[in-house]
Structures are given as C-alpha cells and as structure tokens.
C-alpha cells in the first residue's frame, strides 16, 4: 500500500546492535535502522515508542544525542513486562520503534548561551544525557555546564564510564557525583541529591534541568528555590502512561496538556498551571 499516507502508529524496524550493562537493573541499547544509521532524527529530550510485538509498547526517552547519526541509544530500567523482555535481548534482535515524540528541550532557544545546571537521580540521567552530549557537541553555544548526579549506590550510576572518562575531563563541565549511602570503594560525596545541590549552592543565573524520581524532583526544586532560583529557570521532564504518543489516545492528559505531545519537557512554572494529577 505504498500510496497510503504515512501513519505514525506504524513503526519502523530497529536493530539492536549493542547491549551495554549499566547497572544491575539498567541496560543501554544501541538501535540502528536495518539499512544503518538512526531510524529518525530527534531533538534532545524527545522520546520514542519501542515495542516488541506481542509483549508491549512503551515510551522511552532517547538517551543519545541527535548529533550522533550512527545510532540511537536508550537506557532502560527493568521494571515491567516489556522492559524485562528488552533486558533479555541480545545483539541482532529487532524491535519496533516510532517517533520522535514530544517537545524536547529548548536547546536552540531558552538554553542557548546559558549556564546549564543538570540535576539527575538514578535512571533520570537518561533523558539528560542526550542534552548534555548535545551541549558538549555545540560547546560554544552554551555557558558553563554543571552536572549533579546521584544514585542509590555506585553500582547504580548510569553511564559511569562515560561520565568519568569524558564528561569529567571536559573543560567547562563540572561533574558532581553523589550516592545515597556510604560504600566501600567510594570516596566521593555521600548524600541525597537535593541536599547536595543545596550544599553546592549554585549561582542563580543558571538554567536548571532536573530529572529523576518524583520525590527527588520535588525536593530539588524546593532546594533550588531556596537558593534563589525562579521556577521559570527550571525544566524537568515527565513520565506518564502513553499509548499513541501523539496526543490522541487520551491517556497522558494532565489538564489540557498531553505529556506525549506538549511535554515531556515542562518548565516548572508551567507545571504549576496544570492540575495536580501527575
């Protein structure tokens, strides 16, 4: 039916070419189109629907930066039926992929020329990694970059090698790592992310981007506000149940917004306008 118009619900095939074990429950999958290259273009913060037919379909943020045109990456935490299945995959496995969905981060507008403060907890680094690497790629377009990243333990830090070997070594990029509890072989900071952010005490001329568990976002935002940040300076990304990805199936509706279409990236003052139902 080649004469039929494009239908976003009909996915592309993606081939998993590499599976990286990040943490005990997070793996990062490298996905390419069967003919090579990325399945579609995206902007940082956008998502894609990944599916194993017969198992399920779900929305995942694209972890790789759009500057990488060879492949896409998805860091996925094992938490349900589909993700368990994905975690059992070996290279060569095909999946289906459709997207990109959502608004993505305003990397070409609001962020441009700004000092950026990235704050992530656990798997919350996944959507931010795309932006961070994008910003690193177009380094001159942005100001100073600070990254605060925390996890339950050292073993739960996603992309630890990339952080250590690349981010930490890059000029103009400061990385602050923390883990929740003392651990052997860890001489870095210990403590929860929101507290660490307050301890570090950042300048309020930065634009902050937070991602992590809801409770961490809540306290970090409060911490930033204590430091003098305004909600208009803080961005975050949300996660809700999604089916269509294009604002039609009605599931990710919060007030008049659809997270899949109008989000997942929201400025915190925009969130305040939404009914408290997320």
């Amino acid at each position, binding site marked *: 039916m080649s004469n039929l118009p494009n239908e976003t619900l009909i996915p592309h095939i993606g081939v998993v070419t590499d599976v990286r074990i990040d943490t005990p429950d997070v793996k990062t999958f490298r996905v390419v189109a069967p003919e090579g290259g990325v399945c579609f273009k995206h902007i940082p913060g956008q998502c894609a629907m990944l599916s194993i*037919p017969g198992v399920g379909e779900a929305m995942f943020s694209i972890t790789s930066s759009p500057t990488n045109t060879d492949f896409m990456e998805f860091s996925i935490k094992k938490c349900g039926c589909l993700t*368990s*299945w994905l975690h059992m995959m*070996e290279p060569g496995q095909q999946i289906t992929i459709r997207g990109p969905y959502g608004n993505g981060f305003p990397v070409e507008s609001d962020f441009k020329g700004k000092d950026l403060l990235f704050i992530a907890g656990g798997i919350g680094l996944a959507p931010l990694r795309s932006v961070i690497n994008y910003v690193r790629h177009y380094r001159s377009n942005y100001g100073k970059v600070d990254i605060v990243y925390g996890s339950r333990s050292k073993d739960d830090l996603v992309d630890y090698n990339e952080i250590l070997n690349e981010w930490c070594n890059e000029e103009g990029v400061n990385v602050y790592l923390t883990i929740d509890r003392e651990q052997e072989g860890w001489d870095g900071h210990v403590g929860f992310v929101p507290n660490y952010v307050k301890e570090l005490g950042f300048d309020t001329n930065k634009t902050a981007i937070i991602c992590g568990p809801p409770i961490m976002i809540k306290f970090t935002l409060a911490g930033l506000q204590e430091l003098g940040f305004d909600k208009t300076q803080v961005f975050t990304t949300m996660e809700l149940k999604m089916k269509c990805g294009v604002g039609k199936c009605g599931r990710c509706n919060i007030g008049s917004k659809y997270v899949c279409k109008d989000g997942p990236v929201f400025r915190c003052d925009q969130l305040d306008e939404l009914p408290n139902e997320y």
Partner: protein
Amino acid sequence: MSSLHKIGVFVCWCGSNIAATVDVAAVAEAMRAEPNVVYATDYQYMCSEGGQSRIREAIKEYGLTGVVICSCSPRMHEATFRKAAQSAGLNPYMVEIANIREHCSWIHKDRMDATAKAIVLARTALAKLNLNQPLTAGESNVVKRALVIGGGIAGIQSALDIAEAGYEVDIVEKTPTIGGRMAQLDKTFPTLDCAACILTPKMVDAAQNEKITLYTYSEMESVSGFVGNFTAKIRKKARHVNEDLCTGCGLCQEKCPSRKAKNEFNMGLNTRTAIYIPFAQAIPNVPVIDTEQCIHFKTGKCGLCQMNCSAKAIDFEQQDEIIERQYGAIVVATGFRPISLERFDEFGYSQNPDVVTSLEFERIMNAAGPTKGQLVRPSDGKHPHCIVFVQCVGSRDTSGCGKPYCSKICCMYTAKHAMLVREKYPDVEVHVFYIDVRTPGKNFDEFYRRAVEQYDVDYIKGMVGKVSSHGDKLQVQGSDLIADKQIIIDADMVVLAAAIEPDPEVRKIATMLTASIDTNNFLTEAHPKLRPVESPTAGVFLSGVCQGPKDIPETVAQASAAAAKVIGLLAKDKLKRNPCVAHSDEMLCNGCSACEKVCPYGAISYMDKEFRVPGPKRTEIRRIAVVNEAVCQGCGACTVTCPSGAMDLKGFSTKQIMAEVDAICR
C-alpha cells in the same frame, strides 16, 4: 511472546520404538526453527548414559536455560532427565518432556501423521517450558514424635509399634482409661479367647513403655501445622485425683456414698460410684471423680474420699490442663459406638429392658459384668429360656433410619453369642434372624457353621417386624423368607445387633486435622485401594474403625500398617516438599474463601494483611489466602474456583497450560 530463553531440544529414537514411525531428524529440524531454540538434536537412547551426557554437555556448551526432551512418557523418565539436567547445573524443573512414544509413535502407523504430531507435541512442551520458572523443592523438619488419638486396641497397637521403632508417642484417650471397646468384650471370635486376657497385657505394655505417654481423660483441643510439624493442644481434664500420688487402692470408691451413676463400662446396665475406676484392669489404675454425681461438687459437703485417702491424692481444686506439644505424625484411632436405637421402635428397645444390644449382651455374659457372667434377664433377673438375636439392626439400611453400610462384625459376634449361650446353657433356645450371613475371614465360616451344625442355633433368613411385650414374654414377629411364612416367637430376651458408627468425636477431630470424612462420618483414605491407612491430609494416618467397620484382627493389622507409615515418616530428618504447589497472588486475592472450601488438604488459610491503598487512609486491611506449601499437594482445585485468578499452580500455571493449548492449536 513469552520471554527469551536458550532451549535445547533432544529427540529420542528409543531404538526403533520412536524412530520407526517418527522421523526424529525432522522433529529436531522443525524444532531448530522455533524461537528460543538454540540447539536441537536426536539420539538413539536419550535415557542412556550417553544420552544423558549429551544433555549435560549441551547445557554447558550452549548455556541452555531449558531442555525439551522428546521421548517416552514423563511418567517413565521425567525424573531421570531432571536429575541429568540438575547435575549440569540446570534447575530440574526447567525440563519438559514431549511424550512422542506412548502418545505418538506407538499408536500411529502413518509416518507423516506421527511425525507431524510429534512436532506439535514438541512445540507444546517448548511453549510450556518458555513459561517455566525454576522451582526449588522446599524442605521441612520432622518432629520425631507421634500422636495417637484414641486409646482402644487400634491406638494401643499403633502406639506400641511406633514406640518399638524408638519414637516417642503420646496417646490421647477421652475416657479415664485406655482399652476402648475391646475391653468391654467378653470373648472374641472365631477363637473364643477372652478379650481381657489378650488386651490387658497390651494395655500394660503401653503404660510401661517409656516411649509412650498416656493422656487419659483428655481431649483434643486443637491441631495446627502440617506434616512433620503439627502442634496439638490437648485438654487434660481434671480427674480430681492426683495421678502421681494415687496408689489405686480403691478405698475411695468403697467409701463413696454416691452410687447412682450409670456405669458406662457396663453399658448402663448397673451403677457405679461418683469416684470410680471404670474397671478392674483400667490403665491408669487411678479413679476419676464424676463431678456431676459427686456430693462434694454438688453440695460442697461430703469429702469422704478425701478423708479416707491415705495418699492424699484427692484434689477437689484440680483444674483442666492444656498441654501443647509438637508432633511429626498423627494417627486417628477414634473407634466406634453402636448406633442409638431410638429410631427402631419396632424392636421395643427403649420400652423393654429385656431387649438389649449385642454390646450389652456382651457385658451380661462377661464374668466381670453386672450379672457376674450369669445369663439373666435385666428386667427380673430370671434365667431366659428363649433368646432371639436380630442381625442388621440399622445396618444395610436404605430407609434412612440406620446406616447404608454393612457393619461387618455383627454376623460373627452374633454367631459367637449364640454359640456361647448354647454351650453354657443348653436349655436355652436360640434363634437368629438374618438377612445374609457374611463370613469372609479366616475360620469365620467354619465358626458360623459350628454354631448352626454343632450348637443347633436356629438361623432364620428374614427380618423381625415387631417385638412386643406379652406378659413377661417378648413376642417376636418375623418373616421366614426361605419358608415364606410369618413366624411368631415368644422369647425371653431379644438381642439386637446394632449397627456401629464412628465415634461422634471424629467429626471434631477431622475438622481440626482437615482430614476429610465421608457421608457416614468415616474418615476418608488418601486412596481407597493404594493408600488405605493414610488420610489425604499428609501426616495423618488412620487406624481402626474410624476409617470403616472392621474386626479386631483387621483393626490391629491396620494399626500396625499406620504405625509403619508413621515410622517411615519419622525416620526422615527432612521432608522434601513438592514444589508444584498452589500459591496465591495477594494483590489479586479477594479473600472470598472459595479456594479454602475446595482444598482437600486444608492447605489454605486466611490472614489479614495491611496493604497500601490510594486515598487519605493510605492502608487497608485485606483478607488474603495463604497456601501452606508443606501441605498443598498440587491438585489445582483452588485455581479454578478462584474467579480473580489469584490462585495459580506452580509447574502447571494457567499461562503454561494456555500456552500448551495455543501451541497445539497453532
């Protein structure tokens, strides 16, 4: 799509048993194309050492997470292949068998058909295996102590045998003495030896055996736990006589002024004192105070027994005592009683004292009985000249008044009674009304024929229609089916062979043990033919008449059989549980109790558990089912009765079976 596995498929030729009709190579090839299958091969004899080592090697080489073996019936070699897999580090429950011999190659002649079916069966096994979970058989300890409920001959025999094997065993007997029904008997058929002479030594053995603890005048309060680990609470009722101090001198009994209580041991044919020892050979030889009869308990006065007891054993203040103990196994030996004859008015049992039951007659004939063994009429103490025995009173009764079953022992004891009467009192005329005379047993028919031929007992095939008083005679109207006429006999005594029924206590006990009972209150066997002394509830065994009517030798045989089963159980240090048991998803369970009702083993109980819920309350208490994995036998009755699907069966899960269905229908 289930999940990703690495599965190896092994197709057995079974020499030519399979290979002659099934193209084994084609099966292996077809399986190789299935998702998740990483290795498929065929081999002459999978069950041989060579075959098994192929499995082991493939598991290691290909990192298999599951194995399908297409071979003979799982009933044949499932265990073999599971062991082989286990030895290579694979969970034994990650092995599935496709039965392509008994269910395929041996029954189909067409090679095409058989091969196609073998492929389907292999896919079916694969579909199930894809959903298998590694299972581990749990273990539980075995408490090396047995409990015997009931201190009759069945209980005594079981206890003695268990104790003989070196295990501690407790007998709980609700009456003040062990001995049971057999102690009431005079002579035993077909040998006519004295019941007391053969029973009392056993009672003494039980009392003296240091492995045996007797709890007489005690009742079961509750039982919890499961095979190997039962916890029983026993209520030791207050005897008001200190067992440790009492010497059994019997003086208290002599002095007791209250003498109106019916003597249970003598079936109420005479009376006893308020403080009493049921019979001379009672064990323990310690009296008990019947508080309903005792003047002290009724009025606060008297106390003669206490005053006369030099051992100071009388203790009016004594209270019931609850004893809690752990047991590995339980033997139920609760015995029987004759049925109540109230509903058999036609025999005039309740109106006429000279109409007695066989057990009463037993006491009358007994030298230690109320008449000192003299055959006299209870009404006037006169010697009877004509006695009519009526068999099947309430047995084989489909009218609803009695019992539908045959009480089994009546034919023989009636013959015994008739014979004993004729021997001791040749002047007494003896008639026996019977429906059938059933004498299957060693020397039984000879015994019966002796009664007829040697002792001239008048056996009349027919039933008694009515017994009525005529002066001091009892007019017995009956039919003689062989002569086809109505007959009337003027008798002095009528003896009714009342049906026997399980002791009513058994209902309570069965509920405690979750052992099932049939419509006649007999305990159900785990299997009527192959496991006749086991209850379906693991760890509970059956001994004696509680399971069904039987005579003394049969009872003793069953008692020993039950003991053997108990010994077999207690000999184990650990019990390996069947891992294919039910389990309930607490997030889905409604707590409706449907599963509990259909569980034949009482493996399901309920508990209240706190759950997090949305809303301001945050938590709520819900009633949920919990499966005791040690008790569950894995039948799956609960899984289907559960509407929400909370209950599932490991190894035969709903999803697994549906995957099998899907694979067959693909």
